[in-house]
Each structure stands twice: as structure tokens, then as C-alpha cells.
């Protein structure tokens, strides 16, 4: 059974289609949910949480329907919203304990779990200070802690690295990775930054304009492509001309030339061409697919990745 499943899921706000006939089946792991702003990431998360009800279609979490079994789903889901959600005048301990109790944990269990979870997210002595005095990085940790405190099976993180500096970003991503791999919690990370997802994720769901662009493992997005990148220090245009004359499919990309690999003779032909023109060759490398290609323009990316 898929952890998260969507069947013909649509959500319309008047004429605006936030989600349009989305079909999706996600297995446990660290799942990146990628899309531009307004692509429908948050809408999907909110439907899974039962805050929004779908216009048509259905979504399930661990086999439970998002509309019918909302309460059951919420017990096993932790949600970290995109926006600020912390009152400034209480301590992190106080706040997270309170949220644990709202999630149904008895008083002592709530205290224990809070201490444990705050330690996991890396808040130590600061946790007794008021949240108002925290840095953005610390606040993000508290937000993650409140989502983790009731030991969910599924964590929904909406833009968890928002507003963080590069160090804070890496720490947060590391924390997410640790949560997903060592705690045995499935994590869905919504982000518009592909690099982040590449760093932590095992599975990628790309949505665009409410439709599923592609859902697959991260490695399949970045596997080798039948394209050879040739880099020369100078004379790239001359080399491209020479290769064109040999009936190779080429494309000039800055100082690099991308050559389609039809058969093994391509390597020899390039070598000969470079030697004939007496150009300084820097490298020849088989291209890897890049996640960015997904959104840059869908057609060549699909062709390039295969």
C-alpha cells in the first residue's frame, strides 16, 4: 500500500485550478515535493491534512481517506507550516509541550518527548528562553520540533529552509535527512529549491500548475544521459562546425559542446576533430540529467533523461 495516494485529485478555487486531476502514489522515504510557487504544493499538503477538501477525486494517507478519516490521519501526521507559527512570549519547552498535549500526549509524556525532540533538533539551554529572542534558524528548529513531538509516521514540511542562511540551510537539511533515515519517519519536503531536494531526498514528485510532471526516484532523474559534453579552452565554435560536417547532432552551450552519442565511433570522431583543429581539450564527459531540466523546458529534458 502506498503511503500517500492521490486519485484524480482536483482542487479548484473558482476558475483557478490549484490541483488538476493529480494521480500520485508515494512510498515511504524522504520525498521531495517540488514545484514553482503556486504549483499546488501547499494545496496538496493541506488536502492531505484535511484542512481543505478536494473538489473532486480523493487522497489517502496510509489508506485513510483525507476527508473521512481526518482525525485519524492527523494523529500520525506532523505538519510544519511555511509561515511563522510561534508565539514570542513563551519558551520553546513550554510551547512544544503544549503542542504535544494538543496532540493527545499525557502531561508527563508530553514533557519527556519535548525534551527529547528539542535535543534532536539541536536546541539545548536556549529552550528555556523565550522564542521571541531566537534566531530564524532556532525558530525553524522549534517549528520542526512541534511537528515531531507526537512521533508522527509522516512529516509534512512546507518550505522548511525558508529564510535560513546557507549554514542554517545545511543544518536543517541534515536534520531532515536524519529524521527521515534514522527515525523511520517518512518526510515530505515541499520546496521550490531543487538543489535542496537533491541533497536530502530519495524520491521526487514534481508538480507544475496542479498537474504531475513526474514522480520517480532522485537517482533516475540524475542518471547518465546519451549526451557527451565536450569542453575546449578555445575554438568551441570551430569544433562545433567540424562536428556538424561529420553529421553529428551538436548544440553549443557556452564553452561546451553537447554531442548526441549515437554509437562508439562518436568518441573517435570528436578526438580526430579536436586533433585536426589543434584545440586544447579540457574534458569529455557524459552528461548527467539535472533536476533543473524538469522545469527549464519539459520536452528536451524528457528527451535528454529518458
Amino acid at each position: 500500500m502506498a503511503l500517500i495516494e492521490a486519485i484524480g485529485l482536483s482542487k479548484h478555487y473558482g476558475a483557478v485550478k490549484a490541483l488538476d486531476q493529480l494521480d500520485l502514489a508515494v512510498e515511504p522515504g524522504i520525498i521531495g515535493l517540488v514545484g514553482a510557487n503556486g504549483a499546488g504544493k501547499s494545496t496538496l499538503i493541506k488536502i492531505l491534512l484535511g484542512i481543505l477538501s478536494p473538489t473532486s477525486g480523493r487522497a489517502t494517507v496510509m489508506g485513510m481517506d483525507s476527508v473521512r478519516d481526518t482525525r485519524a490521519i492527523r494523529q500520525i501526521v506532523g505538519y510544519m507550516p511555511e509561515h511563522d507559527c510561534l508565539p514570542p512570549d513563551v519558551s520553546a519547552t513550554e510551547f512544544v509541550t503544549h503542542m504535544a498535549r494538543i496532540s493527545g500526549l499525557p502531561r508527563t509524556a508530553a514533557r519527556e518527548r519535548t525534551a527529547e525532540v528539542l535535543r534532536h533538533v539541536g536546541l539545548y539551554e536556549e529552550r528555556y528562553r523565550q522564542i521571541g529572542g531566537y534566531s530564524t534558524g532556532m525558530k525553524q528548529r522549534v517549528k520542526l520540533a512541534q511537528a515531531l513531538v507526537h512521533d508522527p509516521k509522516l512529516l509534512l514540511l512546507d518550505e522548511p529552509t525558508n529564510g535560513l542562511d546557507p549554514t542554517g540551510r545545511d543544518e536543517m537539511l541534515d536534520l531532515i535527512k536524519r529524521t527521515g533515515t534514522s527515525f523511520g519517519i517518512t518526510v515530505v519536503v515541499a520546496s521550490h529549491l531543487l538543489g535542496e531536494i537533491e541533497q536530502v531526498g530519495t524520491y521526487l514528485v514534481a508538480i507544475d500548475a496542479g498537474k504531475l510532471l513526474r514522480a520517480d526516484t532522485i537517482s533516475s532523474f540524475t542518471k547518465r544521459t546519451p549526451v557527451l559534453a565536450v569542453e575546449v579552452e578555445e575554438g568551441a565554435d570551430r569544433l562545433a562546425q567540424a562536428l556538424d560536417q561529420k553529421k553529428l547532432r551538436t548544440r553549443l552551450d557556452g564553452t561546451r559542446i553537447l554531442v548526441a552519442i549515437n554509437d562508439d565511433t562518436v568518441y573517435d570522431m570528436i578526438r580526430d576533430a579536436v586533433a585536426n583543429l589543434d584545440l586544447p581539450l579540457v574534458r569529455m564527459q557524459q552528461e548527467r540529467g539535472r533536476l533543473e531540466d524538469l522545469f527549464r523546458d519539459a520536452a528536451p529534458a524528457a528527451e535528454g533523461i529518458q
Partner: protein
Amino acid sequence: MTAPNQPAATSPAGSIYDLGYRHYEGVRHGRLYAMWSLYVESLRGVWGFGRPTTAKAAPFIILGIYSLLAIVQLAFSSVFAQAMARGDTVELLTYANYFATLSPFIVLFCIAQGPEVVCRDQRYSVLPLYLTRALSAVDYAVAKIAAFTTSLFVALMVPMIALFIGDVLMKADAFQAIGDEIPHFLPAIPASFLIALGLAAISLALSSFSPRRAYSAMGLVAYFLILEAVLASVFAIGVESSLEWTSRIKLLGPTSALSGANDWFFGIRPDPKTFGEVLGADAYLGAALLSVLVFTSILLLKYRRVRS
């Protein structure tokens, strides 16, 4: 409340790379427990517990001022007792007239602490965290009203208890005095509860319209103090020019309606000097109950629309 769910397929990973994270296997309570937790937290918030010391100042100072006269009366009970023994008539505060006399201070409590109960959750967007847990918007509103009602009830009962102790101490035979006093004291409990509920419903309903505490407080000042003052002056003009309809106008006042309802519990007629001759206490009781109903509905409707 809900059936436990199958463990995630990847959970064994936790035992292989054990970094000390332990899964929680204990009980998980449901919605009522969540409401109770929110109620307790809000109640603590009103009095500033778990908050910085400055947060405790406003509620306790206002409560101190509101209860001051009752405590003074308690402190000087022996003096009053001697005066009464000499046959002097002493004007004492009673359970029935205490709220009517000092209501501005309780209103001040509402203005200072009411917005605190609901505004911060909206201002700092804590609300979505509640609504993605076991609580519904209605549960949230109910817990908040209950918390503020309890706070106000406690505040209203402090001087009542001080009066009770004072009255008992004024009597020669304290044990018999307790028995004598209790029937006079008892109506204060339901009366204070109704006043607390009425004020809480108004305070939270009006506060919920703005996430900014200051704006909410201004709204409450307008409704509680300015409206009441306008009604009082219209009433005064009505008395001078003997207009009949103005004697019903106090029904509209938030505190005057509750004050009239308070008299109903003690079985006395609202003071004609401030309430006019036309209406009895039951009319004010009706007005107070209607106001509870209206403002609670406003609050619930308001939160039905807020869905994160």
C-alpha cells in the same frame, strides 16, 4: 479516539541506526483532552503563568483594585462590628451591589486580558497548528470562551469571598454566622458565572476580529465603556424630560444588562435611579442571556471561516 495505525514500513531503520530517537508507544488522548489542554493553557495565559513576570502584572493589579474595597471591608470588619453594636447604620458593600459598584474594573480586566486570549494565536499564526491537530475551529472557540469565563469567574468571586469572610467576622458567633451568611452568599455563584460568561463572550467575539491586540482593546473600550457612557447620558436626559422609552435603554448596555441580571439572582429590583422604573430584573436577565447567545454565535461563526 482513533484506531492505532500500522507502523511505517521503514520503522525498523530506527533500530539499525539508533541515534537515540525513541518512538512514542504510549496513550494518545483524543479531542476532549486537546480541548482541555487548550483550556488550561489559555487559563494560564490570562493570568500570565508560564509567561514573563510582566504578563502577570496587569491581571493581578486589576484584580487587586477590583477586590480592594471588599478586602478593606474585611480588614476593618471589627471596626464595623463595633459601630453596628453602637447602633450606627453602616453602608456596607453587599454581594448584590458589588459588581454594579465596581464593574469598570472588571471591564478593564476584559480589555486588558480578553484580546490576549485570542489575538496572539491569530497574530502569530498559531491557529493552523491547532487546526491541523485534533481540534476543530469550534472546539478551539469553546475552549477559549471556557478559559476566559473561568478567569472572570475567579476574579468576580475573590471579592465575594472576602465579603463573606468579613460578614462572618462581624458577627459575635462565627459558626452560626456561617450558616446565616451562606443563603445570602449562594446567589453570588450563579450570578458571577453569568456575568463572567457574558463578559467573556463579548470580549472574545470582539477581539477575534483583529489579530492586533491594541485594535481589539480599542474595540472593547468602544463597546464596553463608550456605549455604556452614551446610554447613561441618554438615560439621564430621558429622566429629565420624562421620556418613557429611555427607561428601557439600559437593556442594550453590556455591563448594565449583566448588572440587572445579577439583581435577578438576588431577587431584588434593579435600582430605579440607574435602571428606570419600567423593567424588572427578569428583562435584564433576558437581555444578558441574549447577549451571551449573540456574541458566542459571532465568535463561532468567525472561527468557522478561519481555516488556516
